[in-house]
């Protein structure tokens, strides 16, 4: 069974577009012929195979995509004329005009790309849904899947309406595209080159020389927008505060950019040197970031389990996570199981944290990852609740034993008085909202993602 057009299309359409491009430019040569043969082969493979990854695998083995790209480059590359012409045939004005007109075309292309991105960003979500639903119906029919009378499109369409009523910009990214768009930063240096080329009395060799002397050729590589991108990443890292490594890494990217820029005559870093220098920074930070995330996730899991174990003894356990969605008939057994097995599991998780990272249960609370969670308010539980778990519950959390009655009463009180949760738990989301609005416009965050749900907690803050 051939691969459905809905899946295959996005894979091969870019190649079809390259053929359309050469045709529209009336380019016809051995390269374009071969491009068409390769595209035909892709279409054949799409008919012969039903699995898209199998299709991709064969295309890769036959190097169809790679060969196609090379041929396209060869097809559209004009033959060089610069410098080697016979003076009798030498047409300086034509060379200059040809170059300037190519630059003008590139500005048009940049503007068209922006328009296309904006159009995509404000596309009616139901248009996509209709295509997806049509594919789902074809897939179900081909594979004999009974949809049991469920109209996915109708149900999803209602969800979209509901979400848009609540968050009007949930599916609209045009403000984000407008702000993040770097087309004017790219266009400015190209326009400078055009202006240079159109100066009265300009000759081709002078044009080529002056653009190097003034650094215009380097500026055209997009350094302004690259630096803005690095700044944006740094500000995101500061708002999300995932770890100190994330912030330090982004800061170092920016430092590297500025250092390399300062070493250049026109303040524009060498592109390749910048690439390897920023990659160096990535390599430096990647292991630390991974270790940080691993340690954090391990102690969070231990604290969550102690939380669940103590909660299992509360009278309201059946009405809250992780048991609230379990069928009533199976609920008591599930809660009992948590009481019975969690101490054994917690001890094993503790053992692994100690074995791998030398961190004991008590060490968790002085570890830098824990301090960071407090400092950034990304810790779910309140200070008094963590102290309760650490000082009291943990001491009784022993395999084959149960939580003493006096602790159950205290545990219930903490729940009933809403003192379990960190009262500043929304602070990370508030930071993100502040950054988002500062970047994309006041109120944009809420219009896309909705209001941040306030925390109901009577506990004192961590800091």
């Amino acid at each position, binding site marked *: 069974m051939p691969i459905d057009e809905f899946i295959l299309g996005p894979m091969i359409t870019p190649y079809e577009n390259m053929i359309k491009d050469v045709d529209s430019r009336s380019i016809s040569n051995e390269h374009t012929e071969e491009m068409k043969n390769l595209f035909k082969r892709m279409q054949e493979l799409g008919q012969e195979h039903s699995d898209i990854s199998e299709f991709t695998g064969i295309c890769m083995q036959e190097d169809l995509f790679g060969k196609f790209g090379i041929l396209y480059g060869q097809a559209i590359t004009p033959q060089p004329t610069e410098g080697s012409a016979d003076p009798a045939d030498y047409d300086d004005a034509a060379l200059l005009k040809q170059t300037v007109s190519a630059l003008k075309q590139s500005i048009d292309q940049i503007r068209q790309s922006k328009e296309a991105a904006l159009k995509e960003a404000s596309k009616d979500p139901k248009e996509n849904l209709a295509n997806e639903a049509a594919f789902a119906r074809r897939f179900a029919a081909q594979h004999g899947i009974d949809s049991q009378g469920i109209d996915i499109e109708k149900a999803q369409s209602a969800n979209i309406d509901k979400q848009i009523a609540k968050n009007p910009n949930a599916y609209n990214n045009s403000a984000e595209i407008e702000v993040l768009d770097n087309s004017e930063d790219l266009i400015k240096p190209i326009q400078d080159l055009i202006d240079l080329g159109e100066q009265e009395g300009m000759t081709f060799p002078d044009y080529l020389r002056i653009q190097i002397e003034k650094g215009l050729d380097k500026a055209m590589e997009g350094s302004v927008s690259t630096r803005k991108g690095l700044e944006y990443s740094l500000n995101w890292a500061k708002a999300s505060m995932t770890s100190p490594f994330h912030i330090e890494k982004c800061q170092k990217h920016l430092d590297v950019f500025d250092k390399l820029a300062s070493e250049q005559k026109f303040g524009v870093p060498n592109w390749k040197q910048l690439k390897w220098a920023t990659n160096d920074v990535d390599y430096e930070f990647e292991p630390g970031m991974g270790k940080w995330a691993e340690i954090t996730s391990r102690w969070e899991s231990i604290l969550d389990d102690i939380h669940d174990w103590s909660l299992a003894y509360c009278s309201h356990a059946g009405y809250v996570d992780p048991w609230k969605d379990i069928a009533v008939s199976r609920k008591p057994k599930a809660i009992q199981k948590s009481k019975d*097995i969690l101490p*054994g*599991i917690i001890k094993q998780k503790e053992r692994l944290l100690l074995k791998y990272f030398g961190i004991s249960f008590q060490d968790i609370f002085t570890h830098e990852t824990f301090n960071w969670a407090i400092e950034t308010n990304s810790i779910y539980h309140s200070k008094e609740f963590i102290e309760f778990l650490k000082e009291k519950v943990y001491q009784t959390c022993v*395999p084959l034993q149960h939580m003493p009655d006096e602790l159950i009463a205290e545990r219930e009180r903490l729940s009933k008085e809403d003192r379990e949760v960190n009262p500043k738990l929304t602070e990370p989301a508030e930071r993100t909202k502040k950054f988002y609005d500062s970047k994309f416009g006041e109120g944009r965050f809420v219009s896309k993602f909705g209001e941040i749900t306030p925390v109901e907690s009577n506990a004192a803050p961590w800091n």
Partner: protein
Amino acid sequence: MEPDYLQQYKDYYRVRAERFANNTNYKFSYEAESNLSNAMHSCNELIEFKDKIGNLNEICANALIKDEHIMEKAFYEKHKEEIRVLAADRILENLDDCTNTEELTTLVIEEMNKNSLEISMDEYQREFQGDWGQLDEIEIYENAVVPGNYKGEMQSVVEEVQKSIIEGNESTENEARKFQPDYVMKPELNKEHRHRRLIPYADEHLDEQLEKYKSLIKR
């Protein structure tokens, strides 16, 4: 008055070469561009350049690719990226055979595409890293002290996780074989620096997990 094209081209080629002066990362480009500039400067009339240019322009293109891939090679060697370095290695090995920019472009694109597949195949081996947590889960459920009536359930969890790891590996291996038909998972490769640097555990723990993993997936 007709512009002095000869002088203007001399100035242009001089400036072009000077871009690379004193930059140790671009020494081949500097040399090639200087040769091109010298050829231009030796002309008394523009027409002479037609013969004197020879293949100097092509040599400049080769030199630039050489400089850039020397930088790439140095970066990957520094980080012991034995697979990612292969593209630069092969490009540097073969670029002197390229006589025009078309051949040069083809060489670079072909090697980059080839290397991109090699990298994907190599990084499929990181399945082991993703499964580390599941190996721990097996250890946790095997060793947790729980009342006797839960032993069966605990064992079921262990078996389910084992099955998930085995099936996950089979699926990854089958996926990789679509691109490289003889592909085999080799978890041991995770001990090589390019993978090892991403594993935040001590060598002894890595060895221990690898043994368990290999015996489970029989690779």
